[in-house]
Each structure stands twice: as structure tokens, then as C-alpha cells.
């Protein structure tokens, strides 16, 4: 599914902004997540104590390049991540705008090309743009991570039709909704659309009870995935009758 890794739980959890590492650990356990993502840009080599706590959680670690604004920064951070975590996985973020945290698609594709050539297994944080997605696949990515909404905004699936189109355009490519998810219902909706996983952080970390919220997200994502597999009924339009209606004197 994701570079050969099969996951039972389709929630990927960020590790920033929790009240404490202890609560983070409990949230990870409650959610059932098997993949956690961790930033490095700011913490650098000095973050070993926190990384040790993450290792102890037993999850697969997806290091990220959050906070990187250039190709060079992102590539260097990815190399450091490989050295520190001993994994080829990298969630590639190249931020184009410090305020909206919107990805820079041009730098993203370039960084993805460099990292894929170096043997990294790249999870690129991108928009729902189809052409950028194609270029990322050409660059060697086997997963795409479109945003739901800007990072930390909690707005959910802001362009649901665009995401639906993306899902249809890339059948067979693992697609992960990354960023912007604020509520379990939004994560569930993403799973019902056929996305393969959801990655989120703030909605859990900044909940008043992060552990309970982590559990809710785990359940919602499992339910959304099960619903997708079960085959959702099509939405039907009863607003206009297409055939004669019994018992009506005047047929439309």
C-alpha cells in the first residue's frame, strides 16, 4: 500500500504540540495508529530525547521536512532524517508561504526528484492539482498526499470536488489526505471518498482531551474505510420525478 507497507490502521498521526510526551504516547495508543510523523528542521540533532520517546511507541516513523522553504533545506533535512531514524521514508513538505503553509509545487517536484533518485520513499505534501500529482509520480513518488485544507486550519475537505476528481484520476495510487482535518467526520468523509489514509496532528494535539480525540479519529477513519469498501449507495435526486407517480392526477 505505502511503499510495500500494509497498515491495519489508516490514521497517520503527527507528534507536535501535545501537552506532554506522555499524553502523546497515550494518544498514539488510543488511536491505533501505526505511523507517526515527526519534524526535524527546528529540533535538529539535539532532539534525541524526544525521538527516543517516539521510537519507544513502536510505530513506523515517517520523518517530515516541515518548516523547509527551499529544495536545499528539504533535501538536507531528509538526509538528516534518514541518518537519525534509519528509514527511507520521508514526508516531503516544501512550504511556499509561511503564513498559509501552502506547498510550493515547483520546489516540491524538484526536491522529490532528487530524493527519489537518492533512494528515498517520498510522501509528498501537495495540493489536489492533477498535473503536480502527475509530475510527482514521474519524479518517482508512489504516494501522493493532497491537503484537505491549509495546515492547522481544521477546515476539512475544502475542495471536495477537486479531491474526488483526484481520486478518480489516480486509481491505484495511494492517496493520503494530509493537513486541514479538524473533526472525525471530515476524516471519515475522506475515507468514504476512497482515500487510502488520513494524516493529522493539530485536531488531536490541541483537543481538550487529546487521547479521547485520538480514539475518535481512529474509529471514524476505520468506519469511513469500511463504508467505502462496503459500497456506498449513490445519492439520489428525488426533487424531480423521472417517471409517472401513482396516485397523482397530473403527471409531470
Amino acid at each position, binding site marked *: 500500500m505505502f511503499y510495500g507497507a500494509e497498515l491495519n490502521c489508516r490514521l497517520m498521526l503527527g507528534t507536535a504540540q501535545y*501537552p*506532554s*510526551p*506522555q*499524553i502523546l*504516547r497515550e494518544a498514539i495508543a488510543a488511536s491505533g495508529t501505526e505511523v507517526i510523523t515527526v519534524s526535524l528542521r*527546528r*529540533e*535538529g*540533532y*539535539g*532532539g*534525541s*530525547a*524526544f525521538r527516543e*520517546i517516539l521510537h519507544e511507541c513502536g510505530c513506523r516513523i515517517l520523518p517530515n521536512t516541515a518548516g523547509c522553504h527551499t529544495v536545499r533545506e528539504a533535501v538536507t533535512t531528509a538526509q538528516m532524517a534518514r541518518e537519525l531514524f534509519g528509514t527511507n521514508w520521508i514526508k516531503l513538505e516544501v512550504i511556499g508561504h509561511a503564513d498559509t503553509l501552502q506547498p510550493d509545487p515547483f520546489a516540491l517536484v524538484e526536491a522529490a526528484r532528487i530524493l527519489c533518485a537518492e533512494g528515498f520513499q517520498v510522501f509528498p505534501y501537495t495540493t489536489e492539482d492533477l498535473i503536480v500529482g502527475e509530475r510527482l509520480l514521474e519524479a518517482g513518488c508512489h504516494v501522493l498526499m493532497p491537503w484537505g485544507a491549509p495546515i*492547522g486550519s481544521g477546515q476539512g475537505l475544502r475542495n471536495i470536488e477537486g479531491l474526488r476528481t483526484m481520486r478518480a484520476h489516480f486509481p491505484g495510487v495511494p492517496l493520503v489526505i494530509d493537513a486541514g482535518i479538524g473533526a472525525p467526520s471530515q476524516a471519515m468523509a475522506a475515507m468514504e471518498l476512497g482515500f487510502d489514509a488520513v494524516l493529522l496532528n*493539530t485536531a488531536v494535539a*490541541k483537543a*481538550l482531551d487529546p487521547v479521547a480525540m485520538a480514539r475518535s479519529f481512529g474509529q471514524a477513519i476505520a468506519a469511513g474505510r469500511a463504508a467505502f469498501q462496503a459500497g456506498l449507495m449513490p445519492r439520489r435526486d428525488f426533487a424531480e420525478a423521472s417517471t409517472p407517480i401513482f396516485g397523482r392526477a397530473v403527471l409531470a
Partner: protein
Amino acid sequence: MISVLGAGVVGLCVATSLFEAGFAVEVIEPEGSPAPVSWLAGGMLAPFCEGESAPEIIVTQGQAALEWWAAHVTAIEQRGTLVLAAPRDAKELDRFARATRAHCWVEPGKLESQLEGRFARGLFFGTEAHMDPRAALNALRERLRARGVVFHEGTPSGRIVDCRGMAAASSLVDLRPVRGEMLEVVTPEVCLTRPVRLLHPRFPCYIVPRGEGRYMIGATMVESARPGAVTARAVMELLSAAYTVHPAFAEAELVATGAGLRPSFPDNIPAIRRDRDRIHVNGMYRHGFLMAPVLASALVQIMMEELGHAH
């Protein structure tokens, strides 16, 4: 004799409480040791604000700190805490209100006249207090000295109570550093009379008045043991937050910066730990001034039970 290792906020509070309980105390402080990280603290006694992310035990127990400090240090100011957010982050205020208690909604301009017209609403935590941490630490030290407590760098001669923060990490395996960075600015143009916290989804900050136009602006929280000076990013984030509170901060003199490592346990709750013949008081995280008196009192109880008949 009890030998207190370290003369930061924990060492000084512990030594003071033990001395007052009747124990013979000495403070071990290596010559030329760097200033304790509590030197860089905000010096706020804000148990309710901290409750936004701290567990209930900090909120409940931390309330006792004010009385302790007021009994030991003259310069405690109980003027409350004002919590603000920029208009576009107004929802952060609602979240903060839900996550905390002992506050009321206010018009910030009515409490701090210079904020008139700048913020439509804020949260006021009226019972909270603040102090100048350096003045407070110096006062505790002088008080102990005046009563005959010896500070020296020699071999400890008594039961060891280790209050050395990160310096004790080798015997506390789960103690980790959380880096914090702060600034001090001076401006005659800004007049704030109480700590102001500015909420932001990524760069929350607080501004603590130190008097005579001096303000401490803090503090970052980075999961890192990185030593060394403040980063440019920290300075930019903290100053832009201060600028949001009042644009006149842009013309202030940046007179000092500081960076230190907060000793923290995995649950971020300060604790007393026993390690064979040594007792640790550590893991103060963000709560040094708030929780040091609380742990000092708890330690006195432990020592009373242990050595009660010996002094």
C-alpha cells in the same frame, strides 16, 4: 545536615523550606557554574493559564505558590494575567477559555489603557501574579545567607537533595531538555502593567513587565538539547508577537536574549524522585516558579518522616 545541590529556583526554595522547618541546610554550588535556567524564566504564577495545556495537578497545587512567594519575597505583583489574540485568531481565545477556569471576559483597553481600540476582547485571570525572577532568586539567596546557611562548592556533608535540573540528567534517565528562548526589550513608549499572553496557533508568547520600560518576551518550546544562543527564528517569532500586541515594540531596544533547557519528565509534571541515598527534585518544565514551593513543602514532609527524630 541536608545538602541541597543547585541554587536555581528549586534549590533555593527547597533550602528555604527545609531551613524554616528546622533542618540544618547547606547549598552546594560549584564555583563559576552558569546561571540557572530559572534566571531566564518569566516569573509568572499563572496556574490557571497554564491549565490550558498542563494537567489539573499543576492548576490545583500551583495555587499554593502565591502565598509562599508573598511570604518570602517582597516584589510579588498580583495584577492578574491578560490573554489576547489577534482578530483573525479570535477562536484561539474561545478555545483557551474552554480549556481554563478562573477567568472573565474583558475589554483589554479597560485594563491596559494602551491597548484601547487594539483588541475587542480578552480573557482576564485576576488572581494570577508575577515577579522578577532574578530579584526573587537573589532575595531568597540573601535571606538564606543572612540566617547562616552556607553556600559552598565543596563536598556535600549531609543527606543529598539534588536540584540541579538538566545537570542531574545522568541519574534521571527519562529527564529530557525542552529548549526555551526569551528576549528582553526596553521601551519608554509601551506601558503594560501585567503579564500579557498572546495566543497564536503556532507562536504563542507572553510579555512580562519588569518595570521602568523593561519587558521580558518569551518563550519558545523546542524539543531539543541544542545549546547556544537564541535562533533568528525565535527572535523573529517573539518580536512579531510583541509587535502584534503593541506596534511601539518595534522601536524598543533589544537589550538581552537568553536560551536555556527546561528539565522535563515525560508527563511534564515536576516531581520528587528517590534514587538510592539521593532525593531528586526535578522536571520543572515550564513550572519552576509555580511548582518549586509546592515540591519544597512536599519534600519537607518527606524529610520530617525520614529524619524527623534526628534534628
